[in-house]
C-alpha cells in the first residue's frame, strides 16, 4: 500500500503517523500541503497538530490548502482518507465528514488515555479490533463533536458512528469519538492510534486500527 501523510504548516503528528505506517510495511511518504496531486497514493492520512496555528477555528484554514482538492478527489474516487485529531477537524471543515468540532466542554487541552467503545466493528477502520472495547491516547483542546439532530439520526441509520467514549472527556454529542462517511472510505477520529503501536511505549491497541485498514484493503490477512 502507498500512503501519503499530509504535512500542513503546523502539523506535528506527521512523523508519528509516518513511523506507524512504515512499521506496518506501508510505503509511506510525507507530502507537503502545497502539492496538488495525490494520484499515486492508495490511502491519505491527515495527521494531528495545529495546522496554520489553528487560530481561527481548528482546520478552518487548512481546508483551503492546495492539497485539499486532491484529497477531495481521492475521497470521491473511493480511496481511503483518514483524519486523526486535527486531520478530523480539517475533514469536517472541508465537508468531507459531517458535523463540526468545538472547544472541549470544559475548556483546555487534555492529554490522556481513554476507554472507547467500538460501535461499528465491521467498518474498514475497525474490523480488526478484538472485542468492542479499546483504549487509545487523546490529545486535544477542540474535540467536542457536534452535529444537528437530523445529521445524527442519519449517521446512526447508516452506521457511521464507529467509536464512542466510555467516559466522555470533551462533551461530544452522543459521546462520539470517530465517524466514517456514508460511502465508508473517509474516516475521522480524535484519538491517536499512531501513538499506540509500539510495545515500548506501553499501549498497542492502535495496531488494530492499522490492521483494519490493511486487511480490508487486501494488504494483510
Amino acid at each position, binding site marked *: 500500500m502507498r500512503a501519503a501523510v499530509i504535512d500542513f504548516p503546523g502539523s506535528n503528528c506527521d512523523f*508519528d503517523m509516518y513511523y506507524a505506517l512504515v512499521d506496518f510495511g506501508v510505503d509511506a511518504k510525507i507530502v507537503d500541503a502545497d502539492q496538488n496531486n495525490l494520484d499515486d497514493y492508495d490511502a491519505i492520512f491527515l495527521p494531528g497538530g495545529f495546522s496554520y*496555528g489553528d487560530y481561527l477555528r481548528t482546520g478552518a484554514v487548512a481546508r483551503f490548502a492546495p492539497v485539499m482538492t486532491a484529497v477531495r478527489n481521492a475521497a470521491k474516487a473511493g480511496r481511503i482518507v483518514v483524519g486523526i485529531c486535527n486531520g478530523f477537524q480539517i475533514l469536517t471543515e472541508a465537508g468531507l465528514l459531517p458535523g463540526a468540532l468545538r472547544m472541549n466542554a470544559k475548556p483546555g487541552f487534555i492529554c490522556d488515555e481513554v476507554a472507547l467503545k467500538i460501535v461499528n466493528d465491521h467498518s474498514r477502520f475497525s474490523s480488526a479490533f478484538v472485542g468492542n472495547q479499546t483504549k487509545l491516547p487523546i490529545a486535544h483542546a477542540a474535540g467536542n463533536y457536534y452535529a444537528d439532530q437530523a445529521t445524527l439520526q442519519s449517521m446512526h441509520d447508516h452506521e457511521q458512528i464507529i467509536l464512542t467514549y466510555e467516559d466522555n472527556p470533551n462533551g461530544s454529542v452522543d459521546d462520539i469519538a470517530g465517524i466514517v462517511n456514508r460511502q465508508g472510505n473517509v474516516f475521522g477520529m480524535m484519538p491517536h492510534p499512531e501513538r499506540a503501536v509500539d510495545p515500548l511505549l506501553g499501549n498497542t491497541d492502535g495496531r488494530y486500527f492499522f490492521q483494519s485498514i490493511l486487511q480490508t484493503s487486501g494488504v494483510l490477512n
Partner: protein
Amino acid sequence: MPTIVNPEPKTAAQVKSERLYAKWGLTDVEFQIIEDKMGRLPNYTETGLFSAMWSEHASYKKSKVLLRTFWSKNERVLQGPGEGAGILDIGDGQAVVFKAESHNHPSQVEPYQGAATGVGGILRDIFSMGAQPIAVLDSLRFPEIKDEQTKSLIDGVIAGIAGYGNAIGIPTVGGDVAFDDAYKGNLLCNVMSVGLLDHTRIEVGQAHGSGNSVVYVGAKTGRDGINGATFASAEFSSKEDAQRSAVQVGDPFMEKLVMDATIEAVKKMPDDVVAIQDMGAAGILSSSSEMGEKGGTGISLDLDKVPVREAGMIPYELMLSESQERMLLIVAKGHEAQIIGLYKKYGLDAVVIGQVTDDDRYRLSFAGKTVADVDINLLTKAPVYQLPTKIPDRIVGADPRQYQPNVADPAAIFLKILAQPTIASKKLFYRHFDSMVRTDTVVKPGGDAAVIRVRGSQKALSMTVDVNGRYVYLDPYEGSRMAVAEAARNIVATGALPIGITDCLNFGNPDNPEVYYELAQSVAGLNDMAKKLNTPVVSGNVSLYNETDKRAIYPTPMVGMLGLIEDDRQITTIDFKAAGDLIYLVGQ
C-alpha cells in the same frame, strides 16, 4: 514615504543630566565607567545598549564570580556553560543538549504569555545549537491556593506552557510544582528543554569571518517587552503597574516554522551557516553583540533593514525589543541567497541586516546615519561585582531540635501530608500537556523521571527537575546538595545513569548580603554533589531579584538532571508489578 522619527529623543547631555541611565538600571559609577572608557558621553541609543547589556540578566555581573566555580568538565562534556545550552556526549556520534531558563517575572505579570514565551525561548536555545528539541520540563512555584487570584495565576501558567508546547509539537514530559506563600507575588516558572544532535552538527554562537553576513530570521520586530532585560533584573513592587509594557506575545505556529527551517538549514547547508543565536532578552542587541564578542570580531548593523511590525520605532526600541520567534544567523559571504531561499520556503522573513567586521566595534546605522559606535568588548563585559555575604540570623540561631518532627498520631499526619497540594498528584496540571507527541515518550509524567527513547537506537534519556526550596532556606548548602541528590534518585529509579546537570538559580536581591550568602552556599552545595555523582553542570540560568515588597522568595536552585539508559530493556517504572513481589527499602 516613511514616517520621520527622531532616533535620539534626548541628547547625550540630557541623558546624563537627567540621569536617564539610572531609570534604565545603570548606576552612576557604571555610567561614569562608560563615559571614561568611551572618552565621550554615550548618546541615547548607546546608553540604552549599555543598560541592557550590563543588566544582571544579560551580564551575570553579580553572579559571575560564583558561576565560574561550577565544575563543568568531564569525559562527556562537549560544550559547557557559556553557549546557549550545554552538550554531553551519549556515544555513537550523538549528543544531548539541554538547558533551563526562568520566566518568573513575565509569568507573574501575564501568566499565560509569560509561561508560553518561556517555553518558546528555551526551545530556541536548543535548536539554535542545531539540535532537534525532544522534550520540555517545567518547575513551578506558586503561593498556597487560597483565593481566585492564585487559581487564575496557576491556570494561566499551565495553559501557557500547554498552549506553546502542545502547538509546536514538543512533548512536555515532566516537572514539579510546589505551593508556599514564600512565592506570593513572585511565582516561579522555570522551563527546561532537551534536544538531540549529531556531533558533526554542533552550532555555536560565534561570529567569524569578516565580511560574513548577519541574517535576521523569523517574526517581525514590534515594541514587545522593551526593557524586558532590565525589567527582569529589577525587584517587583506590587503597586507598580507601569512595568506592564514588558508583555510579549508568543506565536508557536511561527516558532515551529522557524525551528523546522533552522534545523533544515543546519543539516543541508552546514558550511553556509557560520553561527546561530536565539534572540532572547535584549533581542537583536544581545544576540549580535555576544556573537561578535565570542568570535573576537566586530559587528555592523543597518537598522533600516530590520523587518518591523510597527511604524516609527527608534533604534533604542529596535535593539531592545523582545519580540518572540526571531533568530540571528551568521552566514558565509556569498551564500546568503540559499539561506534566504530556504527560510522563504517556510514563508519566513530572512534578511541581511549587517556584516561581521574585523575591528572590535559595535556599529549601528539608522536612516543613513551612524547612531551607535562602541567598543564591543566594553559593551559585552560589564563590571563584575564581588558582593558581601552575611549568614542569615535564622541560620545562625537555628536549633537543630526544631527540625525534629513531633509525631503523636502517625496515621493522622500521614493523611494530612497526603492532602497537601504540594504532595498530592499533579495530574490535574500535567494532563493539559501533550506528553506523547513525537511518540518517543516511554515514561510519561507521573513517574519519578520521564524517559524518552532515542529513535533508531537502543538508548533512552531520563530527565527530571527537582528542588525543595524550604530545605534550601533552612540550610542553603545542604538543601542544594539534597536537590542534586533527589534528582539523581529520580533518574536512577528509571534505570538510568545520571550524566549531567543544568540549573536555574532563583534567588532574591543579591545586594542583600544574606541573599548573596544563600546564593554562594547554594552554588557550593550543588557543585559538591555534582562532583560526587560525576554529573557536571553544563548550563544554567540565574534569576535574581525575586522579591515582592522587599521580601525574598525561598532560595530555589532548580536542578535539571539528565540520565542515560544504554539499553531500553533496562527502563524501570514505579508501578508495582505483581502481588507477592517483595518490597525493599534501600538506603539509610
